[in-house]
């Protein structure tokens, strides 16, 4: 019996260690953005408690930024919620894509996992799923660690953000560098490279034409369709 619990404990330790190894770059990237969000939210009149509450309940960087700027310009409740919905629709695609790797997992765990799907945690988990040796528990670990980093950094931003000089240590580049790396890790063959190029090109064109961030969903869906058709040909 004791032996069993001990083994169980060791197993959870290794899950946690794997999750930390995968999640720390996400935490570094969240830090400057969380701080910046905290500063902005505080200027918009939110208390540190409200900032933390929003980070826990919503946990979506870009949506939170947009919401706060809408709050500052006295937008109503319904427009803010609708915009949040539009901004986060891309997670519908991510969640669908992740579902491929989560076969026989209880609905409770799935529901918990769904809460933590962000651009960053999704990409980190997917790159690990491809490598094999990754599962729902480790993904959950990554999501929770990232969530913790986000909540803490936004609240700290609300309290002390203004004391930190802008652009220190190249922090503003953390997110871009992370996306570059994640994109490189996703390219596992020619069709992936072609899809990435088409999607990037389409996204740029659409982002110049249509306001808002609808270009993300439109470009990714179209590029993935083109990629699938190309794959059938070859």
């Amino acid at each position, binding site marked *: 019996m004791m032996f069993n619990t001990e083994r169980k404990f060791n197993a959870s330790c290794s899950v946690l260690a794997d999750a930390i190894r995968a999640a720390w770059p996400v935490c570094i990237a969240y830090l400057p953005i969380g701080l910046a969000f905290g500063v902005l939210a505080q200027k918009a009149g939110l208390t540190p408690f409200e900032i933390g509450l929003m980070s826990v309940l919503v946990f979506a960087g870009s949506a939170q930024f947009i919401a706060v700027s809408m709050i500052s310009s006295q937008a109503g409740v319904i427009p803010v919620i609708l915009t949040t919905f539009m901004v986060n629709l891309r997670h519908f695609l991510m969640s669908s894509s992740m579902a491929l790797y989560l076969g026989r997992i209880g609905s409770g765990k799935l529901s918990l996992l*769904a809460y933590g799907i962000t651009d960053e945690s999704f990409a980190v988990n997917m790159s690990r799923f491809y490598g094999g040796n990754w599962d729902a528990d480790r993904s959950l670990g990554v999501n929770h660690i990232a969530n913790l980093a986000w909540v803490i950094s936004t609240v700290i931003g609300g309290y002390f953000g203004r004391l930190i000089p802008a652009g220190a240590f190249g922090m503003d580049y953390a997110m*871009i560098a992370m996306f570059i790396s994640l*994109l*490189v890790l996703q390219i596992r063959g020619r069709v*992936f490279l072609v899809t990435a190029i088409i999607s990037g090109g389409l*996204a740029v064109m659409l982002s110049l034409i249509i306001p808002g961030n609808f270009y993300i969903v439109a470009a990714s*869906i179209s590029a993935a369709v083109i990629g699938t058709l190309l794959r059938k040909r070859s």
Partner: protein
Amino acid sequence: MVIGMGVVTYLPRWLPLLFLSKRTLPHRIKEWLELIPVAILSALLVPELITTGAPRHLDLLRPEVAVAVPTILVAVKTRSLGGTVLAGMALYWLLDLC
């Protein structure tokens, strides 16, 4: 309002996981879903990198673009997420100090 934001954020993350993970999907849909991550990442990254302002306009001469070239090389060579993030930050910081 925050609760409403939470709900509309959670639903698109939750429903596909719940309904798709227990189903066997047609081969073509699977192939399409496999390409979604790479497509989304590229659609998120490239406009962020080479356009700026509101409304957006192209700008290829930003320091972000210059730093992206060595950062991509580091990513390809090391295939390490953490290493690439740190290298990108250091390069961007150096360029800023110059």
